[in-house]
C-alpha cells in the first residue's frame, strides 16, 4: 500500500494500461502539457505524441474520431476536460458510440473510454461544474463510472480501459488532490460492483463520487449519536449494483440517496424507485433523496454553497427517517 492522490492513481492506471496494451492511446486537448489538471503529465514523453495526442479544440471530432478508431482495432481514451464540454460531442457518444454495436447487429464493438470530469470545484460556475452522470446512465450501450477514491480511480480506470463497451468515466474535479491508500501491485476493480464503505444497521445511504466522503464523515457523527448508517458507494452507475443496495435496504429498512447532481430526474430517482418497487413492504420509512436543487451552479461561494448537499442536511434526513418508525428504534436509545 502506498499513499497516493486520486489524480496520481488515474495517471498510473493509464500508464499501466498503455504499457500493457499498445492499442491503448489517449487523445484530447493539451495532453502533451499534462492535461488541464495534470492527469497526463509526462505521459507524452514516455509514449510519444502518436499515443498521447494533442488535439484541436474539436470535441465532436475528438469523440467521433475515437469512435472510428475504436472500430478500427484501437482502444482510445478520450479526454473531454470537463463533462460540460462533452456536451459538444453528445451525438458522437450517444448516437454513434453507444449504438453502433447494436445497430450493426453485433459486427463490432466500440471499446473507448471517455474521461469527463464532473462536479463543483473552486467557483467554476455554471458551465464547468455540472454532474451529468444521469444523462448517460439513461443511454443503452454505455457504462457509467464515477470513482471516489484513489484506489478506485486506479482500479476502475484500468477496468474501463479493458472493457469492450464505451465507458463514460467521470472523475470528480474536487478529488484530484484527495489521498488514500492504493495497492502497489496490479489493482483492478470490477465494473458494476458497489462498495460498502461503512457497515451500519439503521439506514442505507447510497452515494457515489465526492459525496461518498461527506457521507462517511456524517455517518461517523451520527454513530456518535447512536445511529449506524451503512454507506454504499455505487462506483458504477450503469450497471448499478442492485443486489448490494437491495440487500442492504432489506436489512436496514431505510434508504437515503445523497448525490451532488440535480436531484430532479437524477440517478437517485432510479435507486429510490427501484427500492420502492421492490422492497415496499420492508421499508420502515419513506425513501429519501438529497441532491442539488434545480438551479445552475453559481460562482460566488455563498451562492455555490446553495447547490451542495451539506452534512447537516444528511444528518437531518437520517434522524428524520429513524424517528418515523417506533418499531425499529435505533441502537443506543
Amino acid at each position, binding site marked *: 500500500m502506498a499513499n497516493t492522490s486520486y489524480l496520481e492513481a488515474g495517471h498510473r492506471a493509464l500508464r499501466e494500461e498503455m504499457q500493457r496494451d499498445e492499442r491503448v*492511446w489517449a487523445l484530447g486537448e493539451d495532453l502533451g502539457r499534462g492535461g488541464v489538471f495534470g492527469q497526463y503529465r509526462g505521459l507524452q514523453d514516455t509514449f510519444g505524441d*502518436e*499515443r498521447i*495526442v494533442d*488535439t*484541436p479544440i*474539436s470535441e*465532436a*471530432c475528438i*469523440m*467521433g*474520431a*475515437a*469512435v*472510428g*478508431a*475504436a*472500430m*478500427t*482495432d*484501437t482502444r*482510445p481514451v478520450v479526454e473531454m476536460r470537463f463533462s460540460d464540454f462533452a456536451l459538444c460531442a453528445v*451525438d*458522437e457518444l450517444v*448516437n*454513434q458510440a453507444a449504438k*453502433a*454495436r*447494436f*445497430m*450493426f*447487429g*453485433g*459486427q*463490432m*464493438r466500440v471499446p473507448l473510454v471517455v474521461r469527463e470530469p464532473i462536479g463543483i470545484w473552486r467557483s467554476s460556475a455554471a458551465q464547468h461544474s455540472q454532474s451529468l452522470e444521469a444523462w448517460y446512465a439513461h443511454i*443503452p*450501450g*454505455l*457504462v457509467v463510472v464515477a470513482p471516489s477514491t484513489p484506489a478506485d480511480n486506479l482500479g476502475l480506470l484500468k477496468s474501463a480501459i479493458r*472493457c*469492450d*463497451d464505451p465507458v463514460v468515466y467521470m472523475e470528480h474535479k474536487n478529488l484530484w488532490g484527495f489521498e488514500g491508500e492504493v495497492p502497489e501491485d496490479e489493482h483492478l476493480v470490477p*465494473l*458494476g460492483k458497489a462498495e460498502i464503505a461503512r457497515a451500519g444497521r439503521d439506514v442505507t445511504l447510497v452515494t457515489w463520487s465526492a459525496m461518498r466522503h461527506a457521507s462517511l464523515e456524517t455517518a461517523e457523527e451520527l454513530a456518535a449519536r447512536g445511529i449506524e448508517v451503512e454507506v454504499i458507494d455505487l462506483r458504477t452507475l*450503469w*450497471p448499478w449494483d*442492485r443486489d448490494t443496495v437491495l440487500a442492504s435496504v432489506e436489512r436496514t429498512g431505510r434508504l437515503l440517496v445523497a448525490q451532488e447532481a440535480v436531484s430532479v430526474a437524477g440517478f437517485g430517482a432510479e435507486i429510490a424507485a*427501484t427500492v420502492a418497487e421492490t422492497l415496499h413492504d420492508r421499508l420502515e420509512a419513506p425513501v429519501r433523496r438529497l441532491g442539488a436543487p434545480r438551479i445552475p451552479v453559481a460562482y460566488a461561494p455563498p451562492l455555490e454553497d446553495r447547490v451542495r448537499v451539506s452534512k447537516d442536511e444528511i444528518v437531518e434526513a437520517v434522524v428524520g427517517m429513524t424517528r418515523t418508525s417506533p418499531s425499529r428504534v435505533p441502537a443506543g436509545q
Partner: protein
Amino acid sequence: MTQNAARAEETSANLDSERLLPVLSLMWKIRLFEETAIEAQREGLVLGAIHPSIGQEAVAAGICPNLRQADLLLSTHRGHGHTLAKGADPLAMMMELFGRAEGTCGGKGGSMHIADFGVGMLGANGVVGANITIGVGAAHALKMRRSDDIAVCIFGDGAINRGPFLEGLNWARVYDLPVLFVCEDNGFSATTRTRTLTGGPGAVARAESLGLPAEEVDGNDVLGVDAAARTAIDAIRQGGGPRFLQCRTYRMTGHTAVDPATYRDAAEVEEWRAHCPIARLEGALRLAGVDEARMQQQRTEAEQYMQDVYARARDAEWPDPAQAFADVQDIGNPAERAY
C-alpha cells in the same frame, strides 16, 4: 463531327472496356437494387424510410472499384449504392431493408444503418455529417498502424454545413491522415436547395481553405469520377494525406422514396435524365466498340439477380424477438424487464 464528339471518340478509343463492363454491371446493380427496394416499400416489405440513389450511381461506381477490400468506407443515409459498390451482399442488404434475421445487421439497423465490416463498410449513418469524424478516426487508426489502407467518407452537400465537416477536415489535415472525402453533391439538403443555405463558394473552397487538395468533377460521368478517384486514392495511399472530391450529380427520385419532390419542376428532372450516368457510360462503351449485346447482358443479369434477391428476402425469417436484447453491451446488458 463536333469538337466534343471528337474528343469523346478519342477518349473512348482508349477505354479499358474489360475494366469498365463490371462498372456498368455495378451501376445496374445499384439502380435495380434501388428500384426493387422502392417497389418493395410500396408493397410494405421495406419498413422504414429509404433514400434512393437513382441517378447518382456514378459516384459509388467511380470511387469504390478503386478501393481494396481492406480500405474502409463510411457512408450516409443514402448509402445503398456505396455499400453495394464496396462489395456487400445485395441479398443480405435487401433482407436488412425487410428487417429479416439474416440482414447485414440482423434486422436491427435497416436502410440507414447498413454496415458490412467484413468488406470494410463501416456503416451508413442516420445523422448527417456524423460519418465524417468517424471516418477520420478510422484513418487515424490506420495511420497509427502504418497501414497503407485508406478510409473514404462519402457525404452529401448538406453535410458541409454541419460542424463535424470543419472539425473532421481540419483534423485530417493536421494529422495528415489517409482519407478521401467525397461530397456527393446532388444539390439538395433534403428538400431545400443547398446553394440557398450555403455561404461562400462551397465545398471545394472550404476544403482548400483547410489545406486539402480538392477537385470538382462531373458526378454523372463515371469515367471522370473514376479517373479523379484513382489519382486521389493513389496519392493518399502513398502518404500524401487527405484529399477532397466534389461530385456534382442529381437524384432522380425524391429525398425519400415517398417524397414526390414537388419543390422542383419536371423540366429540370428531364434535363438531368438526359445525363443519366448509366446511359453515358453505355454511350462511351458503344463508341469504344463494345457491342450492344454485352451491354444489354449487364442489365439483364442485374435484373434477374435482383428479382431473385427480392424473392429470397421476402421469404426470409424474422429475427427472434430475444435478439432485441442482444449486442447492447457486455456489462449491464439488461434482462427482459424495464429496469
